């Protein structure tokens, strides 16, 4: 057996972060940060009584996550683990977020901006055992796991290879390989009597390749919708019929996935599947209380609720409108959410009572007239929910990236290709262009399975679940 000292230098590796709890709703979500800079990284986003770097190992710290502009993002508890007494044997900080999935994603984003890198699937475990944390019997068990998983991964990669995504990536990769060859030709065979590639044409082709990579990258948002579902927040006054709409949507759908018990916030979440996409509908506590309380606070709370979702379903009462007009509260909330990039769908309920108010022409396709009681218009609403998440993002491409690992690889490829393009435009010699082009190729190769030597270890353990 080898001496572990040989691997001590592994602790010099970069700092990685990921959400360690399974995706979806839960009381808390834990973000794990590991690596030599994990304390410094955490301190950049965490505001508590004292800095985490200065705190002893194995202590818990209550504090806030605050973004660059000083805005409060979430209340968290940070746990400190100093090397080697942590899961990975590295310095580790675990941040327990309370704000739900979207907020956790946001916090993770901030941590990544603060200097950590998104962890590969299984990377924490990889580090744990690279650093000697696991003993032989544990390691052998892990070995079996890797093996069984790789069989599955092999089959799934075969499936992917026949799929659109791989074809698309292979296409880009082949083109980049051609470009790289053209560059190498003029470097290694400059004395030969051959025609060397024209810089302008190289630039055009590289730009095209980058466009494809960027397109795939942006499809990840859609891919995520398929994979992780859509969060829909329902807001409205208590008598507007929120719960009856929720029930109507659920009734229409025979395949109710699950009924998730209320979380810390005492909200009600139900899941409904529409055309294979999971919509998680959450009835907010926010507006329920606001009718009688101070208006301003009500909107703030509803906004906070809505910010955790992808879609805000604003339920309005046709009959109330008939007598009282639209409460300014609604338009205010709509404006605020719209500005935050959250899609707002307006649902006029009680069509059975006040048909005179409908049907009107829906503006922007996001206004629906329904009767939760009779079920009228509910089908249209279901379609509306679907098109709200698909139509806007899918664009022209039918290829969708769903895996975070693919997204990471594409993002690194895009970064390298951008460097490469910049170098090409600056008129520098081919070997500088080639350097980043190769890095881009290697990154794409991680997806198609044409793995290049340096990245192998990072890919090996991708069969593990993230954050384990």
């Amino acid at each position, binding site marked *: 057996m080898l001496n572990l000292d040989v691997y001590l230098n592994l602790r010099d590796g970069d700092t990685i972060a990921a959400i360690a709890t399974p995706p979806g709703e839960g009381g808390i979500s834990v973000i794990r940060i590991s690596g030599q800079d994990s304390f410094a990284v955490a301190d950049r986003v965490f505001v508590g009584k004292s800095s985490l770097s200065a705190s002893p190992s194995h202590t818990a710290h209550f504090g806030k996550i605050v973004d660059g502009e000083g805005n409060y993002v979430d209340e968290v508890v940070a746990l400190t683990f100093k090397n080697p007494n942590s899961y990975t044997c590295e310095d580790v900080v675990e941040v327990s977020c309370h704000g739900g999935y979207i907020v956790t994603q946001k916090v993770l984003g901030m941590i990544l901006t603060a200097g950590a890198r998104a962890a590969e699937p299984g990377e924490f475990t990889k580090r744990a055992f690279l650093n000697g944390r696991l003993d032989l019997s544990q390691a052998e068990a892990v070995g079996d796991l890797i093996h069984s998983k790789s069989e599955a991964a092999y089959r799934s990669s075969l499936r992917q290879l026949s799929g659109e995504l791989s074809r698309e990536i292979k296409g880009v990769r082949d083109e980049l390989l051609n470009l790289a060859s053209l560059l190498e030709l003029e470097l290694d065979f400059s004395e030969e009597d051959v025609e060397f590639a024209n810089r302008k044409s190289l630039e055009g082709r590289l730009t095209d390749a980058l466009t494809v990579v960027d397109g795939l990258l942006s499809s990840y948002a859609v891919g995520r919708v398929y994979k992780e579902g859509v969060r829909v927040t329902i807001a409205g006054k208590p008598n507007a019929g929120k719960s009856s709409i929720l029930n109507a949507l659920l009734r229409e759908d025979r395949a109710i996935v699950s009924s998730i018990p209320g979380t810390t916030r005492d909200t009600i979440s139900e899941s409904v599947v529409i055309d294979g996409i999971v919509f998680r509908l959450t009835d907010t506590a926010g507006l329920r209380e606001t009718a009688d309380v101070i208006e301003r606070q009500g909107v703030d709370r509803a906004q906070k609720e809505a910010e955790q979702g992808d879609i805000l379903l604003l339920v309005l009462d046709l009959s109330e409108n008939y007598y009282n007009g639209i409460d300014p509260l609604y338009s205010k909330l709509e404006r605020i959410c719209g500005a935050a990039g959250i899609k707002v769908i307006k649902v006029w309920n009680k069509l059975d009572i006040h048909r005179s108010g409908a049907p009107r022409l829906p503006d922007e396709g996001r206004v629906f007239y329904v009767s939760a009681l009779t079920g009228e218009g509910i089908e249209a609403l279901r379609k509306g929910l679907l098109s709200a998440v698909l139509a806007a993002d899918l664009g022209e491409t039918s290829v969708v990236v769903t895996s975070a690992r693919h997204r990471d690889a594409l993002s690194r490829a895009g970064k390298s290709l951008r460097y490469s393009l910049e170098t090409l435009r600056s008129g520098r010699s081919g070997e500088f262009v080639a350097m980043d082009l190769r890095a881009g190729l290697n990154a794409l190769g991680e997806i198609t399975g044409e793995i290049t*030597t340096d990245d192998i270890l990072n890919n090996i353990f991708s069969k593990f679940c993230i954050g384990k």
Partner: protein
Amino acid sequence: MTEKKYDVIVVGAGHAGIEAALAAARMGCSVMMVTMDIAAIGRMSCNPAIGGTAKGNLVREIDALGGEMGKIADATGIQFRMLNRSKGPAVWSPRAQNDREGYSIEARRRVEAQENVHILQDMVTDVYVENGEMVGVQTGTGVRVPCKALIISSGTFLNGVMHTGLKSRIGGRFNEPPAIGLTASLEKLGFVSGRLKTGTPPRVDKRSIDFSKVEEQPGDPDPEPFSFQTKEVTRDQVSCFLTYTNHDTHELLRNGFDRSPMFTGLIKGIGPRYCPSIEDKIVRFAEKERHQIFLEPEGRDTNVVYVNGFSTSLPAEVQYDAMKTVPGLENVEMLRPGYAVEYDFFPPHQVKLTLETQLVKGLFFAGQINGTSGYEEAAGQGIVAGINAALRVKGGDPFVLRRSEAYIGVLIDDLVNKGTSEPYRMFTSRAEYRLMLRQDNADRRLMKHGHKFELLPPDVYDALRKKEEYISVLTDYVRQKSVPPAAVNSYLESIGSTILSENEKVSQLIKRQDVKLSELLQMEFFRSDSLPLEAASHKHVVEQVEIETKYEGYIVRQLEEIKKFEKFDSMEIPEGFDYARVKSLSTEAREKLTRVLPSSIGQASRISGVSPADISVLMVYLHG
């Protein structure tokens, strides 16, 4: 013949053998060099040139390790050029035309002058192994000579067969007999051999060339020597000349295809794709109307001219007739036809990164026997084999150059892990860390090794240390020093660069592509700073600072890549590790790993046929 016992025996006195013998002797070993012809020591079998793209880097590296090739090339060069000068520094490569005879004489002089090296004109026909260790050789004259290590660098001589047209004759080189017996002897020990092919063009008489019809290619006005120990090259240079084949040439060659040993299947060995014969070129690139022919003089005092680009094994009369259609060669006198040569090699997965064989301790392979082509590739392996043979005899950790450290490292790593099916030649694109493996910094990368093994004169290493000191002084200086617009704007204007409107760091200015540090430091403004100016008076110091500053962003990114790479390469796999024990390895991976016996996880991951899943399984077993 004395019944002497040697520490190291070197078979072959070509470019690999020379470096191997000299390195081992300088490390204190008694060395016997066995060559079939003493006059053939250091003979350039093919083109009379050293260096070229990526190969020039190899020469610089050999030199930094304390080898001879660069010094011999400097002493006997007749034309020097720095290739790729219009491109970035990482792909600059020195190349020299050499006096073929002169090179060989100079090489022989150096070998003969070396203490501890005994030269024997003979042939090694058999090797003796006891308990898996090399113990001695048998020579053609029937003498048995004991040794502790044997380095075989036999070039194209192992069962060599030469072809010109359908006539074939045995031999390793024009008019030289082949080495018979050694291949069989090695096969008996369990080694596997293969067959490769290479070729050489005809030689012609300079006096029969019409130079008015060819294009002159002069050497550089400021010739750069190869060796860090050569101060400068002052001799006059000789020009080469460029001409082209044409439609008629190709027609005549085609007419001889029925007598081509290649196309008729007589030649079985695989030839290099990057250095094809002329007949290969016109078949594979039929649409191409002309091919370049370089007329390279073989020396200052000879009329022999090497017809580079016209390598062929067609019948002599076809070669002759075809050449006469080439402008400038209408009345050419052919002195000797080109030929192809087939020879045995031992697929290189059978050696370790030290070039010691897996099967026999103390037996080393270097050069064409490992499937490479080229003098520089051979010499690079020669010095590594020589050092490791000496380390084996004298004791010491094996010497392995990493891919991130040297082209020689890339070369050997590729051979061992990827193998080769054609004669392997170095290219800059084979090196993933090309930006760091430059010809200009080979001394800074590798002299520490040459120094450690005492292959470098002490003053040479002292000079490097001084150079490093100057580099560090000047680097700090350019990083810290700010210049006011008035001090440099006239210079910036003169080179068409944007002028300054406020103070700017010197390092920022050098980052501009058109600004040269050497020119910048000429400005009056810098005169008062004596220490950096002293550093700046050395052009190689300025060059290093300039390159490292100008390309800093790229270098930093490359260094990060290297760090990642070295991490995996530092994870050792214990010698004698039994892959059969690891049940979850795929069958192919187990086979390949058992064959190559990698010394690190990084190396294992580069072996073709070993998948990431296999690596993960391996890591689990090794790292429990």
